[in-house]
């Protein structure tokens, strides 16, 4: 069963098309990642699906309910964590959770147990009485998650939940999401981090309001036509510029390595070596590698410059 579905969902802000004809389906119990750089339209999509922003055209359904006509009914069934920390810094951890428990009318029976469990699984129990404003970035995110989960939602919308959070807290956060998945909660998460996108069951690549690709992580990687060569050489920055000037495919610089997308491995190898030799740049290694999401992204989005 599809938990989230959109049909030609579009949102304009004046002349700017923030989201352009989005067609998407997310299965129940899936972790779906909406991946894209800043300004791609991720937050707009989140807001349209949570019923707090109206689309300019197109339609969306969440858990079988229409996102515009039944927006208020949707709100009972979803948990949403906005990009900015949306909790009250002058309320304590437990006061914030209690507040949201009341807003969602969490039944008195079992309520305390549920809250204690949420606190325990987000490691917030020792900080119960601490003001939310005095929590670290990672703890704030976990508190936001606990508030969004207090009413046991069917769908969870997380807008760049780990933005600015340290790697350890990020790992903890994802561990919590996997546990939720065990409980058949559908998770719709947006991120600009590609390593994080690899943790999702399926992803949608969003760029300038358009969905460039939508599949499993491997499926998206398979969209890459040809082979990926990793070049290690002296003065990689200059080499990348030279390679880009040729008719070779996508060229991207990753630290001191250059990734080049070529239609044919042997042909590509020869071309690259020729370019480097002509310029007198010593080559230390040239090998075929498994593409990462970032490679897919750089090749799918030629307009974005990677230096």
């Amino acid at each position: 069963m599809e938990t989230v579905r959109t049909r030609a969902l579009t949102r304009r802000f004046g002349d700017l098309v923030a989201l352009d004809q989005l067609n998407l389906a997310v299965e129940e119990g899936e972790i779906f990642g909406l991946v894209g750089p800043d300004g791609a339209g991720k937050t707009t999509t989140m807001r349209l699906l949570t019923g707090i922003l109206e689309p300019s055209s197109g339609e969306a359904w969440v858990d079988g309910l229409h996102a515009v006509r039944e927006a208020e009914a949707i709100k009972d069934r979803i948990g949403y964590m906005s990009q900015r920390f949306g909790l009250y810094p002058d309320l304590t951890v437990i006061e914030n959770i209690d507040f949201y428990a009341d807003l969602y009318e969490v039944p008195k029976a079992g309520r305390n147990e549920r809250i204690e469990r949420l606190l325990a699984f987000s490691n917030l129990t020792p900080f119960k009485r601490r003001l939310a404003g005095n929590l670290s970035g990672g703890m704030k995110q976990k508190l936001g998650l606990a508030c969004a989960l207090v009413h046991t939602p069917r769908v969870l919308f997380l807008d760049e939940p780990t933005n600015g959070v340290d790697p350890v807290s990020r790992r903890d956060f994802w561990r919590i999401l996997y546990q939720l998945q065990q409980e058949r909660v559908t998770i719709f998460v947006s991120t600009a981090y590609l390593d994080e996108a690899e943790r999702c069951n399926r992803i949608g690549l969003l760029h300038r309001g358009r969905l460039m690709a939508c599949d499993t992580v491997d499926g998206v990687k398979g969209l890459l036509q040809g082979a990926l060569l990793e070049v290690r050489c002296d003065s990689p920055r200059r080499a990348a510029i030279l390679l880009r000037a040729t008719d070779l495919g996508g060229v991207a610089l990753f630290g001191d390595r250059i990734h080049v997308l070529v239609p044919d491995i042997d042909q590509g190898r020869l071309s690259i070596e020729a370019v480097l030799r002509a310029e007198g740049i010593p080559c230390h290694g040239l090998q075929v590698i498994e593409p990462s999401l970032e490679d897919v992204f750089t090749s799918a989005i030629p307009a974005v410059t990677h230096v």
Partner: protein
Amino acid sequence: MRTPWALNPRRLAAVARKEFIHVLRDPRALGIAIVLPIILLMIFGYALTLDLDRVPLAVWDQSRTPQSRELVSRFEGSRYFNVMAMSGNYEEVSASINARQTLMALVIPVDFGRRVGSGRTAQVQVVADGSDANTTTLALSYAESIVRTHSMEILGEKARRLTGHPLTLPLELRLRAWFNTDLESRIFIVPGLIAVIMMLITALLTSLTVAREWETGTMEQLISTPLRSSELILGKLAPYFVIGMVDMLLSVLAGRFLFDVPIRGSLLLLFTVSAIYLVGALSLGIFISAKAKTQLLASQAAFVATFLPAFLLSGFMFDIGNMPRVLQVVTYLIPARYFVTFLRGLYLKGTGLTQLWPECLLLVAFGALMLLLAIQSFKKRLA
């Protein structure tokens, strides 16, 4: 289908509890909410007196006779004047007025004593600083009344000497001012002041609450929940209503014990109608806040929308009857007008609902309308 009017008591209570915590954990805001009205009451109550007394006066007595000294002593004896300088020529008179040491000068000509003594009309001149027209008009009328009274006394004395009987005047005016016997403007100002201050404080307090949530991003989270606008607005009103009623109580106490303004009407009616007015003013603040979406804009808009009309157009400072026709019509739209009328009636005359029901009814309408507007104006949508 859920309407914005339906209420869930649990969610309403949750919002109210949260708002109480916001207020109680911010001692500065709480201090302002409680102390500011008292400071305003002090400043306006003491400084804003429309009475004029001890007008600084310069005297240039060229006559130097018992008759001229008698007239000067009448000015000295009046509580309205305070003789600050005895001048010797016009230069000194004009110098002291220019230096703002005196506001007015009494100039008695050389032949004053001789003419009064011989029963002929003697002239005295009063020179006044006309740059402050209001004060000078008042001071001139006081001076005129002193001179006239003194003139009558001279006439009476002369009649008694000639006929052996005291002079009987054909007409005598007896003044009696009801409700404020001493015509003290304080008694008139304080009740009106309460109306102005309550309007300002309450709208300022609530104008920030919704805008703050939009600014900090908590609103985005709130509107993604099943919370309804009626629950949010009423919940937000609750703590400020309590603060407003405390402010009202403090103002009434200060008026009674600091400014000695008696309350002749029913206290129950006073606080009931104040509560209604408060709901209207608080809702107006919320309405502004929901529309403005930033705290700076909201507080400025609240100031312009509440304080200025309440101060200028409520009849608190300026008599509505003397305003141009167009402005008079505008004053009907200013709720503070009805509250000022109500408070003055209740405080000074002790009138109740029998006379003041139209004002009370209009205040109820104002409160209800603002509350509906505030709830209606809040949209659970971004942009």
